[in-house]
């Protein structure tokens, strides 16, 4: 379980949020909402250990996140930033990239398993042998998501997973995230998409005015 307790972050003298507390139990989907610049992405980065909290703490299964424990924490996390451009030329290489990391080498990459994920996200199998540049923004977004799904981490942090998608595909992505949640994955997504947010188990509004 991921727990954020009494979290506050101020950047450049501007308080992004204060006193923010919530939990993400195993198998739940939580959507962080709020206006642009309210600190949603910064909060995701704080959960990853890339940004310090001014006050409060973050823990996973009761273990506190500290700069020295962050790398160990991230072994249990999969993260998809917004506007991600991976250095791979081919889609097949892009899919394999996270599996080349030492921490993920125990998780065997299988094209068959990946294709099963792609079917849920309505991605055409033929895309696998194409160049990344031939993919649309939405296809790339879903392909990266499928690789994270295949990693099977216990926590998935995803920034604007539906920003390049139409309503139908956004619903597919939400359904896909729910299938990951059913497998026990805790999901924290940042989104401006109201339909997506409503479909999540919990919505957390991130703003400086929180109690």
């Amino acid at each position, binding site marked *: 379980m991921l727990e954020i307790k009494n979290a506050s972050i101020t950047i450049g003298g501007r308080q992004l949020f204060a006193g923010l507390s919530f939990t993400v139990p195993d198998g739940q989907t939580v959507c962080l909402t709020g206006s642009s610049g309210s600190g949603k992405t910064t909060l995701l980065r704080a959960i990853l250990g*890339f940004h310090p909290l001014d006050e409060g703490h973050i823990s996973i299964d009761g273990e506190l996140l500290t700069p020295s424990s962050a790398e160990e924490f991230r072994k249990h996390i*999969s993260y*998809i930033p917004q506007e991600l451009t991976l*250095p791979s030329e081919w889609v097949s290489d892009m899919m394999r990239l996270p599996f080349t990391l030492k*921490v*993920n080498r125990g998780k065997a990459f299988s094209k068959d398993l990946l294709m099963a994920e792609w079917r849920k996200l309505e991605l055409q199998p033929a895309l696998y042998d194409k160049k990344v540049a031939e993919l649309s923004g939405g296809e790339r977004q879903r392909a990266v998501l499928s690789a994270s799904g295949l990693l099977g981490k216990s926590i998935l942090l995803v920034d604007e997973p539906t920003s390049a998608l139409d309503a139908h595909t956004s619903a597919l992505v939400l359904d896909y995230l729910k299938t990951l949640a059913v497998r026990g994955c805790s999901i924290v997504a940042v989104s401006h998409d109201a339909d997506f947010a409503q479909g999540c188990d919990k919505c957390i509004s991130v703003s400086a005015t929180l109690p």
Partner: protein
Amino acid sequence: METTDISYLSMAVGLLLMALPVYFFHRLGARLIQSTAIATVRMVVQLFLIGLYLRYLFEWNSPLVNFAWVLIMVLVATFTAARRTRLRLRTIALPLFSGLLATAVVVGLYFLVLVLRLDHPFDARYFVPIMGILMGNMLSVNVIALNTYYDGLQREHHLYYYLLGNGATHLEAITPFARQAVEKSFAPCIANMAVLGIVSLPGTMIGQILGGSAPGIAIKYQMMITAITFSASMLSLMLTLRLADSRSFDVYGRLRNVRRKD
């Protein structure tokens, strides 16, 4: 065999050739005339001064003085690289100085002691030019590589955080950027190496032949110089990146503000 000296009048005749590119800069409207003039004057003055220094270095032939000369070269190379990469001195000065010095000493002495088998490896005639050629090559590779590395980290920060956020160690997360830096900085060296002797006759070889060495000896030296400059460039870069790491990233793994504003 004596090397034919060049009189000052002949040198002036030779330098007249510089007028040709300057003419085309003028015709094409390229804003390079002033910088060419400054660079030419600097080259002439610096080389005359170096000629003077070297004369005394060779006369004294003291290991301590020779080593002090290398320290000065490393110091100048460090500040030159910092200026060309626009990296903050507090980030890069000490790592670069240490990387260049350690590599020059290790690779230079490897060549002088194990390859040339000199009884006096600090002999100015060998020690000073070998250190000089190592320094020049290490400097150009480090400048290109450091620029590429830090530009990549700044431009593609999403990739860096994606890798870390999916469980990569810090080393794994910076590896794509180090790879880009190495590829970009070493590609010209490899291309040059591949055409040595066919498309280009390198400076060391020409210098030796003009100085009276047999071509057979000159090519052996050229091969060795190519090998030591190539490996020294890589070793110095790896040392510099390793030593600069804790100065480049904060405790949260974020890239610090490593570039100067000017």
